[in-house]
């Protein structure tokens, strides 16, 4: 049995197809990352897997339960940390956890022990009896992670777990996630648009764009696929970048302010590129060879253009209220 299996999972909102025939499987025990730009359909996919949102067509199963037919069983077997804060700040940290245990009908005695254990894991045991509204953003996140684990879920969903957190806090969260995947018998599915996060945590990643998986594999596999090396060139006339495509050892040219070439062996190719440029009269102002990262993989598949998120006034208001509450 797979931890998660989706078959042509699709969700349309009036005129937008947020998730488009997405088929993917996640194995038991792995840390799987859904990577993609804002609005790529990551959260929509997650919401369907958590049974908050009904698929328009296609199917998905979590822990062997169909999200459409047995949402109750799916819910009991998963834990979720939402992208936006979902804590009652007027309750203490411990009360938030206790309420969760009640909602999930965890046996009171084991629930109490589990709460203590998790408070220690996320290092909130000393501040557990303060109202959660006094917590920093990172502490709230940690509390949410602890909360998602109380009922021993088989799959834990983390939607952008470190968005808006400072680097130290982010590193802490990564540490917990890593520890979890070692110590608990659990499958973790996270969405992120931070490449280093995916590279650091995930056994496998799926890059999502326009609601489809455009690349799937372990971070190292994906990096190897796009080429061994990357050469970044500064050109006096950047419009001539495409001319490099005629070289057979250049796998791909990405024009931009700096021109990027994907190449199998950067060090031996660099002289050939200079040769070619001088023959054609292209003036190179700078050159740099580096090993690709997941970031390059991402740009390779998703492209470079910036996508603005559309926030209506209500979202703005919500964001404002949330900030007030932090």
């Amino acid at each position, binding site marked *: 049995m797979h931890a998660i299996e989706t078959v042509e999972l699709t969700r349309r909102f009036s005129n937008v197809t947020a998730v488009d025939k997405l088929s993917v499987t996640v194995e038991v025990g792995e840390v799987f990352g859904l990577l993609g730009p804002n609005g790529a359909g990551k959260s929509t996919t997650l919401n369907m897997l958590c049974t908050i949102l009904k698929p328009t067509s296609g199917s998905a199963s979590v822990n062997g339960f169909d999200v459409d037919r047995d949402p109750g069983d799916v819910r009991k077997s998963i834990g979720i940390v*939402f992208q936006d804060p979902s804590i009652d700040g007027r309750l203490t940290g411990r009360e938030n956890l206790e*309420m969760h245990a*009640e*909602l*999930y*009908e965890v046996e009171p005695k084991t629930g109490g022990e589990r709460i203590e254990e998790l408070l220690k894991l996320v290092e909130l045991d000393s501040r557990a009896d303060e109202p959660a509204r006094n917590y920093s953003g990172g502490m709230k996140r940690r509390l949410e992670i602890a909360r998602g684990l109380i009922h021993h879920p088989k799959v834990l969903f983390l939607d952008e777990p470190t968005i808006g957190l400072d680097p130290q806090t982010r590193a802490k969260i990564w540490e917990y996630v890593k520890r979890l995947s070692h110590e608990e018998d659990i499958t973790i599915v996270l969405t992120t648009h931070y490449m280093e996060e995916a590279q650091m945590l995930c056994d496998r990643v799926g890059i999502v764009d326009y609601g489809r998986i455009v690349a799937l594999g372990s971070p190292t596999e994906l990096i190897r696929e796009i080429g061994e090396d990357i050469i970044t060139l500064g050109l006096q006339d950047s419009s001539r970048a495409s001319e490099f495509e005629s070289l057979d050892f250049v796998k791909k040219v990405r024009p931009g302010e700096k021109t990027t070439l994907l190449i199998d062996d950067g060090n031996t190719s660099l002289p050939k590129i200079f040769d070619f440029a001088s023959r054609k009269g292209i003036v190179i102002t700078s050159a740099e060879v580096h090993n690709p990262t997941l970031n390059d993989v991402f740009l390779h598949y998703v492209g470079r253009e910036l996508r603005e998120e559309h926030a209506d006034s209500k979202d703005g208001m919500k964001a404002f209220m949330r900030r007030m509450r932090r």
Partner: protein
Amino acid sequence: MNTRAAKTILVREVRVHLRDRASVISSVARSILWLVVFGGGFGAARFSGLQVNYQEFLFPGVIAMSLLFTSIRSGTSVIWDREFGFMKEILVSPASRFSIMAGKVAGGAAIAVMEGTIILFIGPIFGAKLTLFKVAASIALMFFISISLVSIGLIVATVMKTFEGFQTIMTFLIMPMFFMSGALFPINTLPQWMTPIVAVNPLTYGVDALRIVLLGIGQHSIITDLAVLAAAAVATVALGSQAFRNRE
């Protein structure tokens, strides 16, 4: 029905409300203000056929007002939960929608009854005569009245998506329900246009029942009052859970 889920939601509603001292104090203060200022100002006014003085007459009405304000406000706490994301935590749990709704209604009603009881106990200062029976019957009645009022708040909250609309409910729902319930004046001498509105307002029967219990005077029989209140509770809870299921 998941009783544990419903119970934990009830406990949380009450707990969170009690921590908000300012709102508890302000809602009690509002009731006292009505009793002192309105009761005092109209104390000399004479309504035809009224067997008790105005301040005594007003007292059950002010209790009903306190139930109305507090209940509708706790119903709309759903909007807060939604805006602050906590609703998601509840909605994604295995608890059924009905259990969640039941917990919310019971929690809101419990809060309203607590505040109503505070008003009840300061009543003797304003000339109300309490007996153990009157207190017990009033508390039971208050809970009964609050169920439909909290449900109305929940229905409004599921239809209305933001806080900004709260002022609108105040103007178009809470105030008319309060003014046209017989809380402030007897309903047997009203202009004709107001009579049907008073007749369909569930709070009318709540005010009347409270007045029967506390003063022994009423427009309807206690049986009629209880029957209408029961019907209103069933209807609003059913409508509320339907709205909740569809919208959340």
